[in-house]
């Protein structure tokens, strides 16, 4: 629909142009009736009416898109519709040969057309688009957006609240619709005097009272609210930006003071500091990204349903790690009888399994030959099974394995040597095994980045 809407500025010129021709023809006809333009005028009126209707329809779609000042829009909409109807009526009057009525109507039509057209132009290009080129003549003010670079803030206490903190936010997020280039809602935010003058609905800032200032209220509306600023398709203000503007209004919306002069309390200072530190980024990005295995970036086909069901029938828990994810978590917590033979059932899912819990089951080293074929395995819990070094040897090719639990198994110092070769390992659990504390000590000096945990005594 919005695609059609965008045709409004284009289509609308058809009825405008045709009506202009009607006026010219009508004047010619009036001056010199023998011109015999009657048929042409009649046809033109019909075509102007039809294209007018089309313009109204696409115009309506355009209005649904939002982003226009409501009252201007409404006026323009009804003027446009009336104009079209008037065109139709003019044609009827012409048909009925009520020429004098028709001509009087045409004069009104002409004036209305000028006004509606001008309105539309202003809505599209901004209120002072037309007059901007005539300095001092009609009063249109020519002023470029203040683009002087803002001095970098070194000490937050010495920063100019308005110039160095508030203006950059406005320039970034508001000027595109509320400055000399485009003045939606008759509101300009690019200069102090305009900010305090307000817009179509009066002043927008009540110094010292953010809760009563439209300037702040509009920022806090829900995403669905048509009055939300910036509108929903525009980049919203960050939480810190909103807090900053609120604090500025709350502290009297002074335009010349420094931060220190407004006596910010400690939590405001923290906010300001983080605002300066994050300016232009969202606060979430200042933290390190969450650690997530590279496996999850891989493309793997979805697991085979039959194989999943076969495991589930044995009450083995099989579930995707997340919605629509091909990666699986498999747990035998309810199926202690799981053994080397049933482990074969895992094979069709070998690319999908990332977390595998086979603790307390009957598996032996042979099952690890199957587990070794799971290239994307991240977590493996083998505790309380009868696996040992021979089995672990098979796992060396697992390049994403981060967690291995061999508590309460036949693992020994040799096992640890093998695990040392798996570089991706982050956590090794080898409690209740024959692994000696000395071997753990050596491991720790050689691979300090891997956590190795061997029971409370050694924590």
């Amino acid at each position, binding site marked *: 629909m919005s695609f059609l809407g965008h045709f409004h500025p284009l289509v609308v010129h058809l009825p405008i142009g045709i009506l202009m021709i009607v006026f010219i023809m009508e004047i010619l006809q009036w001056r010199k009736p023998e011109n015999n333009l009657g048929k042409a005028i009649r046809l033109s009126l019909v075509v102007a009416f039809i294209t007018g209707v089309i313009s109204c329809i696409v115009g309506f779609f355009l209005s649904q898109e939002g982003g226009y000042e409501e009252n201007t829009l409404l006026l323009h909409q009804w003027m446009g519709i009336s104009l079209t109807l008037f065109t139709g009526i003019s044609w009827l009057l012409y048909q009925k040969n009520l020429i004098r009525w028709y001509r009087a109507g045409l004069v009104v039509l002409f004036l209305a057309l000028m006004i509606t057209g001008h309105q539309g132009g202003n809505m599209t290009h901004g209120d002072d688009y037309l007059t901007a080129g005539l300095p001092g003549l009609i009063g249109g003010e020519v002023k470029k957006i203040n683009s002087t670079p803002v001095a970098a803030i070194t000490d937050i206490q010495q920063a100019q609240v308005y110039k160095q903190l508030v203006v950059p936010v406005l320039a970034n997020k508001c000027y595109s619709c509320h400055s000399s280039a485009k003045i939606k809602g008759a509101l300009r935010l690019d200069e102090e005097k305009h900010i305090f003058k307000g817009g179509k609905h009066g002043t927008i800032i009540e110094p010292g009272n953010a809760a009563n200032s439209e300037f702040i209220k509009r920022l806090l509306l829900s995403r669905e609210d048509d009055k939300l600023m910036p509108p929903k398709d525009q980049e919203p203000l960050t939480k810190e930006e909103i807090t900053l503007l609120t604090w500025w209004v709350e502290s009297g919306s002074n335009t010349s003071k420094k931060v220190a002069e407004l006596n910010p309390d*400690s*939590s405001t200072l*923290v906010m300001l500091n983080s605002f300066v530190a994050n300016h232009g980024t969202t606060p*979430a990005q200042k*933290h390190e990204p*969450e*650690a*997530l295995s590279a496996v*999850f970036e891989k493309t793997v086909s979805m697991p085979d349903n039959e194989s999943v069901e076969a495991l589930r029938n044995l*009450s083995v*828990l099989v*579930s*995707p*790690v*997340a*919605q629509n*994810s091909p*990666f699986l978590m498999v*747990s035998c*917590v*309810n199926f202690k009888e799981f053994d080397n033979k049933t482990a074969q059932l895992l094979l069709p899912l070998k690319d999908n399994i990332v977390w595998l819990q086979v603790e307390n089951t009957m598996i032996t080293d042979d099952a690890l030959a199957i587990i070794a074929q799971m290239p994307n395995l991240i*977590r493996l*819990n083998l*505790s309380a099974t009868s696996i040992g070094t021979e089995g672990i040897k098979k796992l060396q090719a697992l390049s994403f394995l981060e*967690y291995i*639990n061999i*508590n309460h198994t036949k693992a020994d110092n040799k096992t640890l040597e093998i695990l040392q070769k798996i570089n991706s390992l982050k*956590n090794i*659990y080898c*409690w209740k095994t024959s692994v000696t504390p000395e071997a753990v000590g050596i491991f720790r000096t050689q691979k300090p980045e891997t956590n190795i*945990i*061997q*029971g*409370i005594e050694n*924590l």
Partner: protein
Amino acid sequence: MDEIKKILYQYDRRKFLRGSAIGLGGIALSALLGCENDAAKSNKKIITLNDVDENQPLINPHFVPKAKRVIYLFQSGGPSQMELFDYKPKLYEMHGQEIPDSVIGTNRVSGMVSNQNSFPLAGPAATFQQYGKNGTYLSDLIPHTAGIVDDICIVKSMFTEQINHEPAVIFTQTGNQLSGRPSIGSWLSYGLGSLNQNLPSFIVLISQGGGDQPISNLAWSNGFLPSHHQGVQFMTGKDPVLYLSSDAGPEKMDRRRALDFIKEFNLLQKDQWKDPEIDSRLNQYEMAYRMQMAVPEISDLSDEPQHILDMYGPDVRTPGTYAYNCLMARRLAEKDVRFIQLYHLGWDHHGSLHSGIRKATAQTDQASAALVKDLKQRGLLDDTLVVWGGEFGRTSFCQGKLTQEDFGRDHHPGAYSIWMAGGGIRPGTVYGQTDDFAHNIVDGKVHVHDFQATLFHLLGIDHEKFTYKSQGRRYRLTDVAGEVVKGIIT
């Protein structure tokens, strides 16, 4: 007309009218646009007969989770942050002086101190030392917790809006101060389901011998979710779940047959009445049947070696103590129970704080730390989130008479401390900061809803997308607020 019939008739009339209105509209529209097939192709439903359809459990998390299960060690009553985690040396210096007006500001005080005309500060009833790699100051009342400081993240900047126990507990557990919403465990049980079908996914353990402040079962209520998602309270003693043991009862096969027979009746009922609670009932029968196997195994501690029992402290042998429940929590975590909720009462020290807090820490410190260590050595801490915290903090000024030996502290919602460990929490960190009086937060405020959002995030759930429609409104655990605290997540 009885209640059920009323519901049934109402259901039919409303649903029929709405269904047919939307249905006819939809048919007319699709005919107009000539796109009958498009409706089927696209996922958009034109005809919706039942908005219960909208309530679908997530089944799988929204994104890859860090934690699979949660152990929530709820310390009910409002543990004092100044005696435990939030070291404020200035309070010793200013003992007996009035709390500055600039600090107390317009903050709300409870009815219990609002008639006090003096608010003298009280120096902490504990000494502090530095512990761990980062030299975190911790109270000498919690030496065992101090021993795991490198494994936990202490959040000093929690705050809530509630100042009285019941609403504050309900708020922390359900996201709303009034009862009637589902608690965190119920949301998870409903949303993610069970990891072990032989045990409930939400189990509640309440320790005995804490204090007299009661805890209401509304805190583990299922709210508007189907009732089999409410927390299953394990009782104290030999029989954690009542009427499960069938020593002299029927044979297992007979039990099965009886249950199957009852199930047929229930399904008939359901066909007729369409009451979703019949599903819950069926579910509970089946769960009880399966628990007959699983629960005795869980509650039999005979396989626990001596050194493990010692780790949890001497109380561990007494069923119903906090230490016993911590051990149970570990055993349940090993069985992949999704949400294990402990409650310890006895943190409400309006008077006699010195003795009161020593009793509470003696009951909880060792076992809490032991639980974290035990989970860690078993390799369970990586995907188990452990939370230790209450419903609010306490005032730095004194309630009642301030003497050199003793005093009390009132409820304080404006700032309190909790700790979390495992399951994607950044270990060995301290988050947030309060002023010199532990009264106001100066950095890193964490609201209860932020905490809840973070908890869900660690379990792979986007708290804004996980909703349930009830009585015409979509509800979330975090209501309309909550931001994930990224700073405490690895």
